[in-house]
């Protein structure tokens, strides 16, 4: 008997129209937990680097996490994985909402797609009934529109639908997969779905999901819920409002955007506007937000309401669901001071199904090329005069891959290379070919340096968390902060924080010292790897400061749910195993040390020697070689011996265990 997980996955070959229900190996659960971990296993086994990400041979996985659908609050993430057409590395993105729990209730932990349907189709799952259905009538439809049509044509409002819009159909390299109030946005997973001619997946499940030790598990879940309630009413002191709560950043509830608008860069990650948040702008933004937001909404089994229903009848846009930071990305990318613009354009972008981080940056990049004369008026024939309308126009071109949109749809990195004529110089905010958060700072931050450089997610918001981003001014404030800091893996982490000063000897860039930096990075990473395998929302665990889930309560929770006994050490190891496996997948796809570089201008003050030492220390800490590839010994220690064999066979690793990096 399997607990918390169903023990089955669906294998769908879209070329042949074949569907199989396959029992999975419980040993893999023990080793990799589930979600991202087991997804990485499947990609490792079935997605050799020769397979083009957009070819029929590519593999696309939708997975629930190991705790998904259980009573654990916020265990609702769907982990979508494939190889990204943009980065050509592993893409994985977690979406909230209701999809993963429903999949579990239908009786499956995962759906693994391969092949390409001859015509546009969607997959319907209702417990045992599984059908590949014609979706030609949905071609070109918006992502939300598609979900609504499927629910109404099947007369089942309880279906949970994940769908792509036009951008995914057209294989835009930053196309998203949209579901309810959530999306799997980063890395172009929507394009992979489009390349399979798969418009949507609709799922409905009505089966029991058992846990191994019910009373014990429920009591632990109750404790988590109690802490959520307490923490919700007691924001952390000493950090900006937007970082003080739990959940995803409460962009929908909070209108105070001083922190984002004055600290993040506007345009093509170019301009800091330290004086933007005037009283007048604040007042206007507050009004727009109040007018636009109808209700705050949650994901499955979570009280935190990080999303919202946006309605804007005055502007003639239909309702849609929004979350998090997307209300700002378009506004800031387009350098428009009016928040209404953000609400308007995000609605259309969501129907097209594009990533709200990358898209505004791609458009801002195009605008800079126009100003610089690298793109000429002939390249953008038909573009309207009105500044805001230009962005709607660009968005349409990108989603349709039309005219200049054909090139821009590949994202900044590839577009810059295709356009040439010096356009590469305007690609200043990508890492590993992927657009980063538009933030440009002064002093090198060693913790963030390592996370930016080495994060497999290639997206800082899904690596960071736990630690405040800046030291607190006084020792007293720090002492106050660590008092109830139960989440630290070890007491010494409190010392690291207490000793961290804003200025002087124990300040950036030389504090924390490299070894300590590695420990802090590993803590933050491991929490994300646990969430992504367990299917817990990062907003309750790895992302905020002082979250409800942490390394001390997760082992008993996972053990009581699954009946597989984990302690802190073995759970941490499982997370580390997953982190290492994802790294190996990426190494096999070509990732090496040369790629591990934050943008040149990310910090004004850079320290090349220190940075090299940080990177090397981290590689050594992780048991990787000088190229950032896990050594044979490391892989074997993590029970990934077969992975080592394959890396050696492919000459990614040398036969003899190479000496660890020299310090």
């Amino acid at each position: 008997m399997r607990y918390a997980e169903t023990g089955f996955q669906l294998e769908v070959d879209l070329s042949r129209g074949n569907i199989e229900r396959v029992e999975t190996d419980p040993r893999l659960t023990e080793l990799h937990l589930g979600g991202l971990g087991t997804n990485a296993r499947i990609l490792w086994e079935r997605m050799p680097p020769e397979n083009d990400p957009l070819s029929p041979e590519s593999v696309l996985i939708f997975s629930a996490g190991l705790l998904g659908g259980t009573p654990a609050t916020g265990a609702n993430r769907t982990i979508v994985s494939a190889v990204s057409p943009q980065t050509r590395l592993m893409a994985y993105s977690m979406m909230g909402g209701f999809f993963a729990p429903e999949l579990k209730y239908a009786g499956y932990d995962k759906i693994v797609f391969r092949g390409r349907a001859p015509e546009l189709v969607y997959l319907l799952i209702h417990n045992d009934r599984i059908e590949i259905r014609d979706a030609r009538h949905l071609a070109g439809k918006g992502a939300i529109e598609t979900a609504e049509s499927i629910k109404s044509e099947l007369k089942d409002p309880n279906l949970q639908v994940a769908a792509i819009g036009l951008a995914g159909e057209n294989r835009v390299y930053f196309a998203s997969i949209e579901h309810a109030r959530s999306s799997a946005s980063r890395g172009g997973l929507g394009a992979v779905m489009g390349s399979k001619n798969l418009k949507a997946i609709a799922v409905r499940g009505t089966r029991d999901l058992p846990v191994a030790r019910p009373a014990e598990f429920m009591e632990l879940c109750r404790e988590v819920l109690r802490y959520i309630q307490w923490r919700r009413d007691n924001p952390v002191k000493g950090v900006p409002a937007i970082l003080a709560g739990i959940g995803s950043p409460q962009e929908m509830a909070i209108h105070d955007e001083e922190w984002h608008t004055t600290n993040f860069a506007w345009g093509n990650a170019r301009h800091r506007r330290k004086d933007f948040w005037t009283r007048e702008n604040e007042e206007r933004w507050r009004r727009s937000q109040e007018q636009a937001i109808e209700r705050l909404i949650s994901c499955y089994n979570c009280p935190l309401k990080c999303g919202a229903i946006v309605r804007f009848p005055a502007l003639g846009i239909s309702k849609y669901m929004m979350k998090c930071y997307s209300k700002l990305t378009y506004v800031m990318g387009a350098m428009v001071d009016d928040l209404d613009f953000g609400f308007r354009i995000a609605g259309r972008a969501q129907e097209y199904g594009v990533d709200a981080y990358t898209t505004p940056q791609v458009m801002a990049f195009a605008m800079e090329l126009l100003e610089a004369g690298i793109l000429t008026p002939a390249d953008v024939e038909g573009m309207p005069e009105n500044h805001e309308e230009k962005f709607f126009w660009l968005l349409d071109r990108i989603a349709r891959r039309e005219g200049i949109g054909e090139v821009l749809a590949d994202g900044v990195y590839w577009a810059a290379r295709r356009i040439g004529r010096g356009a590469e110089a305007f690609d200043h905010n990508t890492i590993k070919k992927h657009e980063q958060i538009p933030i440009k700072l002064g002093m090198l931050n060693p913790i963030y340096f390592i996370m930016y450089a080495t994060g497999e997610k290639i997206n800082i918001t899904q690596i960071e968390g736990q630690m405040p981003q800046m030291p607190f001014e006084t020792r007293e404030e720090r002492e106050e902060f660590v008092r109830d800091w139960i989440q630290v893996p070890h007491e010494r982490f409190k010392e690291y924080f207490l000793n961290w000063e804003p200025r002087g000897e124990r300040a950036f860039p030389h504090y924390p010292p490299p070894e300590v930096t590695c420990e802090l990075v590993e803590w933050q990473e491991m929490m994300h790897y646990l969430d992504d395998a367990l299917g817990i929302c990062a907003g309750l665990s790895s992302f905020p400061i002082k979250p409800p889930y942490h390394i001390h309560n997760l082992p008993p929770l996972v053990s009581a749910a699954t009946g597989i006994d984990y302690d802190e050490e073995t759970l941490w190891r499982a997370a580390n195993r997953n982190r290492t496996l994802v790294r190996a997948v990426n190494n096999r796809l070509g990732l090496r040390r040369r790629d591990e570089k934050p943008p040149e201008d990310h910090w004004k003050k850079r320290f090349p020697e220190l940075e090299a030492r940080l990177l090397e220390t981290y590689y050594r800490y992780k048991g990787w070689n000088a190229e950032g590839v896990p050594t044979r010994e490391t892989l074997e220690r993590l029970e990934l011996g077969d992975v080592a064999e394959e890396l050696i066979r492919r000459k990614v690793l040398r036969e003899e265990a190479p000496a660890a990096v020299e310090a």
Partner: protein
Amino acid sequence: MKAETPKKKKVVKTIRIDVDKCNGCRACEMACSTFHARPRYASNNPARSRVRVLFDPLRDLYVPVYAGDYAPAECCGRDRYTIEGKQYDECGFCRASCPSRDLFKEPDSKLPLKCDMCQDDPQLQEPMCVQWCITDALTYEEREEEVEEEPAPAQELEVGLEALADRFGMDQLLEAVTRMSAAKKP
């Protein structure tokens, strides 16, 4: 002298539902289904919950509805409310487990489900669904009232049997029971 109708004290248990506070998370469904799992908390399955959130975010509809009595036949009239310009689905607020819809039925056996206010011994401080709704869309209240004595309500077993009889006919049901009891004899 007329005989007085016998009175007794009764505890009225009310769950207050504030739809303005509902965020559509369905924690209430999860909590109800796991509380009623056998053994308790051994599994969860919102399809078996005795409270269901009828919700359609794009139409701003959020209605937690509690399972009421089993209705062997559908009613002859239907209702469809419009409140403050929002159109609710047909039978949107109805609590009945009735043949016209899938709501409030065990997914496999189709036996009717009914909210029992988490009957337990000792009684829970608050019903499970209320406990898990920490946004306070659901709150709980008890008060005492004097009421006339009424016949004991039908027990779960009887309601279930009645539903089976409606579905398969009394004869078939009796036959099946006889067959089963014969088969179970040592």
